[in-house]
């Protein structure tokens, strides 16, 4: 176990190096100039050249790269040229809504998706099963931004129940914060719930055909007990993995929701920084997200081994 952990942690180093290099090269090779983006449409070429020199963007690309790598090795991800603060601070200021949004979205998705999957599997081909799978089909087919805009139209503009945009931080009260995240979380959850329902249904159907389920039934165990005690526990394994993977994937995948609902989260920071060519923020944020992704996958691997004793760390 310890050896496994050390190997996994060491393997992060080359992964991070590749991430840093690819992101740096991609950013500097695509056309566009942060100085021009920052100064606006009316800026003269002289002003742009002046700002480029101030920002060190007039240096050769390899010099900029070496300087950046040295800074990263010293734990300095640089400063945002636009936000005028360190990348780490800028990112940390925006982590709260993103993490809360993902958590709330996944909780909703689990609460909707797993029971739907179980009910479908228990009554295959019933109206319940067909409705549940229709919902799942809609969930994976409807674009998140489209759903978000329609939720705003219905619940914010027509019914005036929930805010259309913005985020209330936890410091302003948990309920207010949750209220501001309700519609974005539903938009996020719809797609994930559909995915979980489909996975849960298929694994439940598979487990329900197993010999030990037939044995339990022949021994006179009640159907409720068969489903909850014998079938569900085993069928949940792939679903749990899917939830963990979804959490890791969503760390880099809430950008559209944050844009549609105007949530000042970490993903919106990256999108805005790409448009502004704020190199330090893009590089730093991608690095942090890549690290989080690797870390969460490591935790999933460990948990998987704990849940299923057949998994070894060799």
């Amino acid at each position: 176990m310890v050896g496994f952990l050390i190997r996994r942690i060491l393997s992060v180093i080359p992964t991070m190096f590749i991430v840093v290099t690819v992101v740096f090269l991609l950013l500097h090779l695509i056309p566009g100039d942060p100085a021009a983006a920052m100064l606006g449409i009316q800026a003269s070429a002289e002003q742009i050249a002046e700002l480029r020199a101030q920002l060190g963007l007039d240096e050769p690309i390899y010099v900029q790269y070496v300087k950046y790598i040295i800074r990263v090795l010293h734990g300095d991800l640089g400063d945002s040229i636009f936000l005028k603060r360190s990348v780490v601070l800028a990112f940390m200021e925006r982590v709260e809504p993103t993490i809360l949004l993902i958590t709330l979205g996944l909780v909703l998705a689990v609460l909707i998706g797993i029971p739907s999957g179980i009910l479908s599997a228990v009554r295959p081909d019933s109206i319940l099963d067909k409705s549940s799978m229709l919902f799942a089909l809609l969930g994976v087919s409807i674009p998140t931004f489209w759903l978000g805009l329609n939720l705003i139209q219905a619940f914010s503009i027509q019914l005036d129940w929930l805010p259309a945009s913005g985020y209330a931080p936890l410091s302003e009260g948990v309920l207010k914060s949750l209220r501001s995240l309700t519609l974005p979380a539903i938009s996020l959850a719809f797609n994930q719930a559909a995915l979980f329902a489909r996975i849960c249904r298929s694994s439940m159907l598979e487990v329900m055909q197993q010999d030990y389920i037939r044995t339990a039934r022949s021994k006179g165990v009640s159907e409720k007990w068969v489903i909850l005690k014998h079938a569900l526990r085993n069928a949940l394994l792939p679903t749990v993995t899917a939830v963990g993977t979804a959490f890791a994937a969503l760390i880099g995948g809430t950008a559209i929701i944050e844009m549609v609902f105007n949530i000042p989260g970490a993903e919106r920071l990256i999108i805005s920084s790409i448009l502004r060519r704020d190199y330090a923020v893009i590089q730093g944020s991608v690095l942090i997200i890549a690290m989080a992704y690797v870390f969460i996958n490591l935790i999933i691997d460990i948990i998987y081994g704990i849940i299923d004793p057949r998994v070894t760390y060799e």
Partner: protein
Amino acid sequence: MSNISRRKFLKYTAMAGACATLPGFPSILRAETPKSGGTLRVALPDNPPTLDTHWVTTYLVIDAAWHYAEPLFTLGEKFEVIPMLAEGYKVSPDGKVYTIPLRRGVLFHNGKEMTSDDVVASIVKWGGHAQTGKQIFSIVDAFEAKDKYTVKARLKVPSGAFLSFLALPRQMASIYPKEVVENAGKGEIKEYIGTGPFKFVEWKPDRHIKMVRFDKYSALPGPAKGYGGKKVAYVDEILFIPVPDVATRIASVESGDLDLGDWIPPDAYDRLKREGRIEPLIVKPKEYLKAVLNHAGDGPISKDRKVRQALQAVIDCEPVMLAAFSNKNFIRLDPGLMFKEQAWWTDAGAENYNQKNPEKARKLLKESGYKGEPIRLMCSQSFMWMYNSALVIKQQAEQVGFKVDLQVYDWATVVSRRANPKIWDIYMTGEGFNPDPTQVELLGCGVGGKWCDAKKNKLLEELSLETDFQKRYSIWENLQRWHYEDVGVVKCGDFFSMRIMGKRVQGFKNLVQPFEWNVWLAS
């Protein structure tokens, strides 16, 4: 005349009064008495890069910053120059010395009184950094304090445009405390302290910029005038909230989460007008669409006036403008290089505008030395109106024999490429609002590819040196006429933008640049 009893009269007026308080009643007819209080939430299309008005040209800065900072002069109802922090001004008979007395008792938000030391420090910094500041400071010999409440500008040559540069909202010449200017050194201002009706509180990027009422604000007496006159901070605080997504900006104002939103695409106008939930406002004047021609390259556009004239002759402006802005309410075909709403407007040279004459274009092209060389037309999809208009211009130009190579980049790339006149011939962009014709960007010289014709330069110099308006206007007419003969750029047409306003917003003046002083919130 029909008779009406006193009782009926009272009944109907009471009913009308009650109706007028209903939320659905048009706000323009509600005519509430101004009242203080509340939080006004204004959507910005993005975070501004700074709140130092001297620093960058983007209008996003002014949208928020001119609530806390003020200039010496500003623009009135007809975009004329009016005093703001200045008491007035006197010009010497030779037109070279401007003496500007300052208003007394004007306090900065840090409690210090504004004096000539603050004004000199601020204006000298602006003159050394801002694009417009540098332009006018090229003729300023000295800008100095005469006494505690008077400053003096000595010019190398007379200038009729000097004050309009000090009044220009773009890269506004705001007055900051001297210490703030000194602390900034050569960089941008870090402490946002001004004399405006609102004072800066906090800036949380992507979340909001917060300003609150400055209780010790020294308001001018008399009525509000354009961007100046009497300013009153009715609302307790303003939150400027960046909302980059247009659909979200509209939905947030519709739902009442936000009160004002700017830069809304015209295609939403008809729906918003029909539904009546919020008020869509057309902002005019705003900008005009122009195809900038390269005058310093080695292609046919640069070398041969007849090629430029041929291009100007073939352009049919209406389809170009409709492709770019889609709604007729938001475009205007007009030859003026200054807007129709301004005293400077003239139609001199109009016979060469919007000619839509392919025959003439073919003839001119035949007489020119054009041999089918590709004309490199740059545009950007960062602003779809630039791209859409370029597509129509390409199509129109090709029908008379031009060979157009359409090059699509993001805006940042267009900006970096346009600095090199050897790699392009035309690019699409907009010309913003300018109070004085000497500030019109297309007349400027010095940056890659700009129109630096000798006759234009001479007329522009005459225009700069002259101080009498009538004489200046006559020079401006000649200059615009010459522009259409030599074809400095191809002007396509004026375009307007849309902003949206929630029903509880009262007293908002819909001028080119939005401002929220004198605005109050309905019950």
